[in-house]
């Protein structure tokens, strides 16, 4: 899809980007990351020719971008930046319509497209289309920024810290939304960030840069488990094992739960407790009710009498959660094993500390 060949950008004597080569496949999310001044933003801006490289070539779908008029090139690439840069004198709808208008789309098509995009980024078109940027919160503005970048449905997006200027909670939501949108749209995305957690969360591949050079370009898992140099090793930090956990979804290491129905007999519950000392209890629609342990069962007359009820929201984990969240929950609650539920709080499995250990050693191998 996009190929950078030996790109160099010099400002006077210093090279902001030094002989960098990079290839990003169609539909992939490539995150450029590194300390301030490492050349990641310059690299991004050379792709749509906001910065002209001193030497080297860039190909998009096999076409040398040097041979395309810069304006035309940029109209075909979505562009979203940290400070958003919405035009304050235009409504949200007019802001989204900028590129479609440059491309001379007809009014009806522009209107329906901006509706579609507002819905896509989770804002109601009726409420937001007529608003002005001054009336938006930071998170809303960033979402409009992303919608504007997607307006003409470009196959490729360049994003410069698109979730940088908002509070951590909003950033997390925007990231989750981005992952969802990207799963549907499969754009080729090049995203600049200095936040490693964001990179790990969003990237198919991470390009780590140092002083204008590309020092490692690989999947997040590989970068976390096999840092290519001391710089990368230090950059990913001592908690890289933990970070790796946030790449693994609970679904992948789920094991079938040891559970009994709330109306089951004491005998069957005791036998279900065979391997461990306790067992999950569910109701007749498989929703998690609580748990019973062997000691209390021996004295009780029914499961219902001895069950310790729990609130599924407090204790159970969603199946879409990451191992990092699972571990955090276990440590926080002092549990060796926690239940996993689906969206309707039905028990779908459980996960134990040993499973997390196994998963990390596997990924690290």
């Amino acid at each position, binding site marked *: 899809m996009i190929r950078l060949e030996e790109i160099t950008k010099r400002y006077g004597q210093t090279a902001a980007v030094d002989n960098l080569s990079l290839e990003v496949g169609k539909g992939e999310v490539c995150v450029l990351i590194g300390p301030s001044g490492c050349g990641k933003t310059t690299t991004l801006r050379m792709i*749509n020719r*906001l910065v002209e490289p001193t030497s080297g070539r860039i190909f998009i779908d096999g076409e040398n971008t040097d041979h395309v008029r*810069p*304006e*035309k*090139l*940029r*109209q*075909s690439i979505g*562009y979203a*930046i940290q*400070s*958003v*840069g*919405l*035009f*304050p*004198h*235009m*409504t949200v709808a007019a802001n989204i319509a*900028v*590129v479609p208008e*440059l491309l001379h789309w007809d009014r009806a098509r522009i209107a329906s497209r901006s509706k579609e995009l507002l819905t896509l980024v989770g804002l109601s078109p009726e409420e937001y289309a007529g608003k*002005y*940027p*001054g*009336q938006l919160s930071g998170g809303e503005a960033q979402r409009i*920024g992303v919608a*504007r*970048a997607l307006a003409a449905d470009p196959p490729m997006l*360049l994003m410069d810290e698109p979730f940088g200027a908002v509070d951590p909670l909003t950033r997390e939501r925007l990231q989750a939304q981005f992952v969802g949108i990207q799963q549907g749209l499969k754009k080729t995305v090049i995203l600049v960030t200095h936040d490693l957690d964001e990179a790990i969360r969003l990237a198919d591949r991470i390009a780590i840069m140092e002083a204008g050079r590309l020092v490692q370009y690989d999947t997040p898992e590989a970068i976390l488990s096999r840092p290519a140099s001391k710089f990368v090793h230090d950059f990913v930090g001592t908690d890289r094992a933990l970070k790796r956990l946030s790449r693994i979804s609970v679904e992948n290491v789920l094991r079938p739960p040891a559970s009994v129905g709330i109306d089951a007999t004491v005998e069957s519950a005791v036998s279900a407790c065979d391997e461990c000392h306790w067992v999950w209890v569910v109701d007749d629609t498989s929703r998690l009710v609580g748990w019973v342990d062997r000691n209390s069962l021996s004295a009780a007359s029914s499961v219902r009498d001895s069950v310790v009820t729990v609130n599924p929201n407090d204790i159970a984990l969603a199946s879409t959660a990451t191992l990092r969240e699972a571990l955090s929950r276990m440590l926080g609650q002092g549990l060796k094993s926690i239940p996993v539920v689906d969206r309707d709080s039905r028990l779908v499995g459980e996960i134990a500390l040993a499973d997390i250990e196994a998963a990390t050693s596997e990924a690290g191998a």
Partner: protein
Amino acid sequence: MFRRLVFRDSVAFSGSVVGLASLLFGWLTVKPSRVAAGASFQLWEGAAWPVTLLMAALWLVCLTASTLARERLRGAVLGITANLILATAFVVAGRAAGQLLEGQDTIARVSLGSGFWLALGGAYVVVFSARESLRGLRFSRYLVSLAGIVTFISLLAAGWFDRLSILQEFSGREERFLQELNRHVLLFAGSVSVGTVLGVLLGVWATRSRRAERPIFFIANITQTIPSLALFGLLIAPLSALSFAYPFLRDIGIRGVGVTPAVIALVIYSLLPIVRNTYVGLRQVDPAAIDAGLGMGMTRRQIFRRIEVPLAAPLVLEGVRTASVQSVGLTAVAALIGAGGLGWFIFRGVGQQAPDLILLGAIPIIVLALAVDILMRGLVRWATPRGLRRGEG
């Protein structure tokens, strides 16, 4: 307690105090002839005691109303009372002038005294304060602001003030007055138009070129510090020399005195506010918006036209407003170098020691400046994009 009551509307309160004080000063001055020394008459001498008591009562109503706690009620009472005061003052001035001239020689003159002007000033202080209290009530605000002016114009048209000296100065000079008024408007409007074109170009240039930025502002700032009289005078010599050296310049009207140096000086004065506001207007555009525009594939020209111009326009027009109001006043000085305009009456009046002739030039200049100010404010508001308007939508 007293303090708390007073400060509900301290502006209207001060205006009312000024108004009450105005009753102690002479309202009309009667002179046996245009340039002779005059005798001052108090309100109760010129008009009558009931009128004086009415005025005092109205001012006391203002004074009391300025302590009202309910804002809109206060605004309404103050606005209505102040306009009643204005109407009374106008009616009294015209009527008393006629009565005082009764039996006098035909060359006797009666002019307005400090008491009248103080009352006018005090009443308008109250009117403006009342306007503030009536925020959000557009119609009432217009009514309060304009009622006094409308009364004045109606009385003027009806010949109510004809016996006042200032109108006697006017009568017999109608043609001259219209001619100079016309010239005044042409001089300042023409200069500001040229100044706007030049100023905007220089302002844009200053934002585009770091090398041009400093010299442009250096020159624009320096010219602003030259006294207007000096600048008018300084232009005479080089322009005379030019027109003597190149006679064809004389033929197209370029001479050392008259319109040419006046226009040049007025253009120079109007530059700074326009250059500065254009520069600030363009500089305050969020660089991120420009970067986003470029990144989306807009050309530099599209960014200028569709982003920078609409965002900078209100500030540029604000600069034009400052330049216009300033020019209306400065144009008065242009009369000194033979360019004409309403300043002609002022300098003629100074020369003849005829204060009312000075007023015949000065009052229209003030009115013109206010009218230009109001017009330009409307224009600025109209040019402000909706997304940038404060307190709206």
